[in-house]
């Protein structure tokens, strides 16, 4: 599956970096060792200076963040299940699944494809990043992402350390108005450091590195869990043949993706764009013919 203008398996724009191109990096998030400490959530917010967005008690296990959005770029999901941990356990047990979710840095990234300003771009590391000085807050990327990751920030821009002046009040319905998401710590990568969440993770549930190494490591880990008889173990978005061309940030899950709030078979929407443009051209032509038809049949007045 390719989105238009993208050769399969290679993120569009990645190779344009030429000599500056760096090995594609990403995350392998192994949820089987996650302990739900949320160190990643905290480290991300601190390093990236993400404004506070209030405290809610959601009554959804230990999850009080709820979702990935403009103020949450790492989100730990908690699922309480009546299901045995091992596939061969006859007795029904209780298990507690935890997963640290993040932007997938898709190979075929819908957010990047649809962005009309070129604000979203492919970095030399193969990741997907918003240029905040370009984004005009059109919001197209928000419903385009098949994972509901990227989101518009509607808070006061003064939370942005005063770097951005407040808008005049007649334009002030949205006070930051741009979109935000995980940058895979672009600034840290440039300095040769690993992303803040991976650094903070005490169990190596979040592993950072070159993508091909991570994929190998994940394959071995999946085999090991299979040998040990874990129930439901699967790799998610590891395969370059999936609907988004494989993710830069992929996961080892212990149940189906939808249980964690992830789509079970996402396909980048722009994979169908060529078809849509053709269809539109036909509709546009039909419109013109229809208008002229009103004159041809029935006269000019």
């Amino acid at each position, binding site marked *: 599956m390719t989105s238009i203008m993208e050769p399969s398996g290679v993120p569009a724009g990645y190779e344009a970096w030429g000599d500056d191109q760096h090995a594609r990096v990403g995350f392998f998030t192994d949820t089987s060792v996650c302990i739900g400490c949320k160190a990643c959530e905290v480290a991300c917010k601190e390093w990236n200076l993400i404004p506070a967005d209030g405290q809610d008690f959601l009554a959804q296990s230990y999850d009080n963040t709820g979702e990935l959005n403009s103020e949450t770029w790492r989100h730990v999901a908690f699922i309480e299940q009546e299901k045995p941990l091992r596939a061969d356990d006859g007795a029904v047990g209780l298990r507690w699944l935890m997963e640290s979710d993040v932007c997938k840095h898709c190979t075929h990234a819908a957010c990047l494809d649809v962005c009309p300003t070129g604000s979203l771009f492919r970095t030399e590391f193969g990741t997907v990043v918003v240029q905040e000085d370009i984004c005009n807050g059109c919001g197209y990327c928000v419903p385009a992402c098949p994972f509901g990751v990227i989101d518009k920030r509607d808070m006061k821009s003064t939370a942005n350390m005063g770097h951005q002046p407040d808008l005049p009040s007649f334009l002030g319905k949205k006070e930051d108005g741009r979109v935000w998401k995980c940058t895979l710590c672009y600034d840290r990568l440039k300095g040769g450091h690993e992303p803040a969440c991976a650094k903070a993770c005490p169990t190596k549930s979040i592993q950072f590195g070159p993508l091909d190494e991570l994929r190998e490591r994940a394959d071995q880990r999946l085999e090991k869990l299979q040998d040990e008889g874990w129930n439901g173990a699967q790799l998610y978005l590891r395969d370059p043949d999936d609907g988004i061309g*494989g993710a830069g940030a992929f996961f080892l899950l212990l149940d189906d993706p939808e249980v964690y709030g992830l789509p079970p078979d996402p396909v980048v929407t722009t994979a169908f764009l060529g078809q849509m443009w053709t269809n539109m051209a036909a509709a546009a032509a039909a419109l013109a013919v229809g208008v002229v038809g009103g004159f041809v049949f029935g006269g000019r007045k």
Partner: protein
Amino acid sequence: MTDARSYYGRPVVKEPTWTWEIPVYFFTGGMGGASSVLGLSAKLFGNEKLSRTALYIGAASDAVSAPLLISDLGRPERFHHMLRVFKVTSPMNIGAWILTVAGGASNTAAALELLGILKPVKLLAELVASVFGPPLATYTGVLLADTAIPVWHEARHELPWLFGASGAAAAGAAASLFLDPDEAGPARRLAVGAGAAELTLMQVMEQRLGETGEVYKREEAGKAGRAAKALTAAGVAVLATRGKGSRGAQALGGALVCAGSMCMRWSVYKAGFQSARDPKYVVKPQRERARREGTKASTMPGESRGAADRGT
């Protein structure tokens, strides 16, 4: 099958952040784009009055479209960033270019018409506006379809046609508002034909969407959709049966068809929010497809080494 599983019933995809300006723009852009074609056609067929009326309607619709879009932006002062690139993978980018060219041309033509100068330039501007008019009226369907919102994405076959029909109906109806019946024949026929097409396409879309389309029966999308059908059907009926005989009836029919077109846009717009809100619309079809075609997103134990061989 059982209902789709989810994470505490939370949405998988995000609701759009767009506000009321967007569906109103779908209406004005559709009407504006189709009016430009109507205007030039009328000129070529020798109906000067209709031509001028449609020209002004097209120019006015295009002129209000841009501020509507800018007002929806999170950073309105950066609206021109839309035109810093040309990007065919972004329907919004292409749309911004189309609106710039079509709107620039239609307003140039209208201004020259008002001033009564530079006839050849005016004709050229009208030509440009009518070439870019139909794309302006139809690309908005692609804009919505090119998202992860199920009720929009799965309607990618119908949306450009539906929006095109609705724009054409509104253009014909708007011109009928301002003209005597003996000058508005082609506009009336356009409103009747395109209005009927709009009604049919709405029905076809909802039918073909199946369970995904059930949002069109509920909440605001349902209400606006029912209003759209009633208003358009009434308008078409009035125009077809009484429009020729009375100026009042023709104006009434035109107003009804325009209102129906606006309600249709509102219904489609709201359906997107409803579709994003309930995770089952995302999860269920994807899970069924994965079952049918073998899951692609998940690599199950035993499959991983084969996948590793395929390289990065």
